């Protein structure tokens, strides 16, 4: 059941990228990005009120944790900019490649206070196959 949910979340992510891109086509990538986050902010505030959320003080949160929000704006904006030029499949594929490289670097060096997991050389085989896959997406 949960695997089915995970699959659906992937489907929804692709639809989200598509709808943002279409909205960007009408009102531009920057406003599409803004509306996406304003709707999300409004919804999460409503959820917080309904669930009688325990609020936190902003000054008690380490500054580092304000970074994901900034990154989120950049992620949606860059998606809006890239998708009309490359198509969704390619953007999803290439960004997954970037994710794999960075997550392995973070594990290898234990960045962001993560547990150190040294890179296994065998994984280069998998990465090569993925790289070939990326070139297939680009060139075939």
């Amino acid at each position, binding site marked *: 059941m949960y695997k089915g949910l995970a699959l659906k979340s992937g489907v929804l992510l692709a639809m989200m990228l598509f709808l943002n891109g279409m909205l960007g086509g009408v009102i531009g990538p920057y406003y599409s990005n803004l509306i996406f986050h304003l709707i999300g902010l409004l919804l999460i505030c409503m959820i917080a009120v309904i669930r009688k959320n325990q609020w936190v003080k902003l000054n008690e949160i380490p500054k580092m944790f304000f970074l994901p929000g900034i990154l989120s704006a950049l*992620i949606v904006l860059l998606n809006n900019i890239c998708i009309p030029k490359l198509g969704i499949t390619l953007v999803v594929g290439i960004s997954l490649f970037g994710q794999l490289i960075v997550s392995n670097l973070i594990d290898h060096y234990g960045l962001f206070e993560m547990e150190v997991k040294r890179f296994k050389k065998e994984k280069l085989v998998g990465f090569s196959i993925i790289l070939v896959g990326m070139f297939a997406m680009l060139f075939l």
Partner: protein
Amino acid sequence: MPCCFYRKGNPMYIILAVLIGVAIVVATILNGKLSQKIGVVNDVMINYFMASIVSILLCFITREHMLSIEILIATPVYYFLGGFIGLGTIFLLNITVPKIPAVYIVIVPFIGQILTSAVIDYFYLDIFSKGKIIGGCLFLVGLLYNARVDKKYKEDMA
């Protein structure tokens, strides 16, 4: 539309797409840590709050023209669903990630995402190619191979 669509584009977009991946990983790690401390709802709220401020700043910096109400009204309503879906997937992934084996956390959503992307590209953007299906399959093989390597070492450690 030629299948080598990207050649018309600028390689810059490929670099930007890699950057999207980098940002996703960093944001996911920090969000995970913060939501453990202050709960998912507070974490998501801070996330969207900061993102909204940055989005407003970006609109100012790029000197976008004021958004006219006429255009917004003329836009099909379902185009605005992205914001709802975005929040929905955060909660969906929050439910599923602790329940499925780590190997599947990346792979299963990826399958859903790449298949849907291929369908949308084909029907709406008219830029479908065989290479995308072949490439998607190779991605899957590579991901599964590396997942097996990880699993092997985990078992050796245990």
